[in-house]
């Protein structure tokens, strides 16, 4: 279970990216977060696995206060949370299988970590993860030879090999064509239903969000302005979530800049 209590996130430049977020997500939910670019969707998602720090309030993942974690604690938290990115974030120069095998690195003895040697069992688990997303035949192909949709599936397999309870997906289909985007969303849905993993997804395609997610959260200027079933969404609620005046547009641009600088400074 993920629980936000009065969470606030203020960037060093003073911009308030998240304001008074109260949110509770149960294990096994499929949540889509919608809103304009820079509304705070990415920040909201990245706070959950502490890729970003919150500045006020408490954020608990499975009863653990994320804000108190340091070093090893953060890494253990992240082991349990998978993350999917818009640009796939794979090592393109190596094979698909090697990308998936990285999931096992934290649990390996030091000498194997350095040499990059994996056991037969680890390879079997990685291949099973690839099979789950239907690209088993590409296991020994270099990632840069694959299409965007296939690459996103490799990323998904990498996350599955980690066997997390929660998957955070930051615009996973934004750089895919409509057909491939649908297939990837199907994968998410299947994983959600079969493995009972919580899936939280940032998405620009409202129609996809409504078609696949069970719960939709609308974010506007760092605040949650809608939280309900996908079926409850109407044209008016959408207009409200996406409503922005010129003044707000200026603000969203600032937010985007803030997100970019923060991304550069993490890790």
């Amino acid at each position, binding site marked *: 279970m993920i629980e936000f209590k009065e969470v606030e996130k203020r960037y060093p430049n003073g911009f308030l990216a998240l304001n008074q977020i109260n949110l509770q997500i149960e294990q096994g939910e499929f949540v889509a977060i919608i809103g304009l670019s820079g509304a705070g969707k990415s920040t909201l998602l990245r706070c959950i696995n502490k890729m970003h720090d919150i500045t006020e309030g408490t954020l608990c993942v499975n009863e653990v206060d994320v804000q108190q974690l340091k070093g090893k604690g953060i890494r253990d938290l992240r*082991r349990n949370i998978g993350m999917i990115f818009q640009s796939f974030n794979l090592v393109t120069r*190596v094979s698909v299988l090697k990308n998936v095998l990285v999931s096992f690195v934290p649990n390996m003895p030091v000498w194997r970590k350095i040499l990059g040697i994996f056991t037969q069992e680890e390879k079997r688990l990685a291949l099973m993860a690839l099979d789950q997303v239907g690209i088993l035949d590409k296991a020994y192909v270099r990632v840069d030879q694959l299409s965007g949709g296939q690459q996103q599936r490799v990323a998904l397999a990498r996350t599955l090999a980690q066997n997390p309870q929660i998957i955070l997906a930051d615009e996973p289909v934004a750089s895919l064509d409509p057909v491939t985007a649908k297939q990837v969303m199907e994968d998410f849905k299947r994983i959600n239903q079969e493995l009972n993993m919580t899936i939280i997804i940032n998405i620009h395609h409202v129609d996809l969000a409504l078609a696949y997610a069970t719960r939709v959260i609308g974010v506007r200027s760092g605040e949650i302005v809608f939280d309900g079933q996908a079926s409850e969404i109407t044209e008016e609620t959408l207009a409200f979530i996406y409503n922005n005046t010129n003044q707000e547009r200026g603000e969203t641009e600032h937010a985007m800049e803030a997100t970019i600088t923060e991304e550069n400074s993490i890790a």
Partner: protein
Amino acid sequence: MQWKLLSPKKIVLPNGKEVLEKRSIQPILWLIILVLLFFSIRITGFSLEVLVNRIQEFFVILQQMIPPNWDYLSKLWQPLFDTIKMSLFGSVAGAIVALPIAILAATNITKNKGIAMVSKFILSLLRTMPTLIVALIATFIFGLGTMAGTVAIFLFTIAYVGKLLYEQIENANMEAYEAMHSMGLTTIQAFRYAILPQILPNYLSTSLFCFEGNVRYASILGYVGAGGIGLLLNESLGWRSYENVGMILLMLVCTVFLIETTSEYFRKKLM
């Protein structure tokens, strides 16, 4: 940059439209280059007269080198191998040590700006010191012989490979690195699995290229007593036994050519 003096040229099209073409500043640049060239000739004391009058002396020496003294060959093998050993060991050790220093110097991996600054400073400091001087100092510390030469080459390799490597690390794609952080890997682990595969071919290629150069460097390190074939070169030049010098140079040319060709072959394979 555009001077006010250089008014743009006007081109009129048949249909009456006008296009303003900016004047090229190329003639002015040529003028500046010529002036600088003139002053550099004056300052360096370059004289075409001396060059023309004395050039035949070069061919006199060259003639004395041919034919080379083949009997001298038997004495050359050991110092030649010393030279190669010196450069090989110095290059391998230097390239290995360069990796951790390059990681510390890369600002995208090392978040502590102080550590990165200090590492970069150490690298540029090492690069500034001429290898010959380092070898000379090393002979004071480790005594005459190949040890001093090895240390000099080791330090130069760290500086050279380290500098190029940290620039490659800083230019590496950080997306996979970010993803691995999000999977709970430590910085070192994420570097090993996300950045290293990207830079490895370049790293090996740079190290090989550095080794090539080091063989050439190593051959003159003997001049300051740091072992290798340079010692004999110095000696033979001192005795004006140019046929021996010819033999040494012939051996060096063959060795360097052989090593460069091999290294080039492998570097092409890596790319």
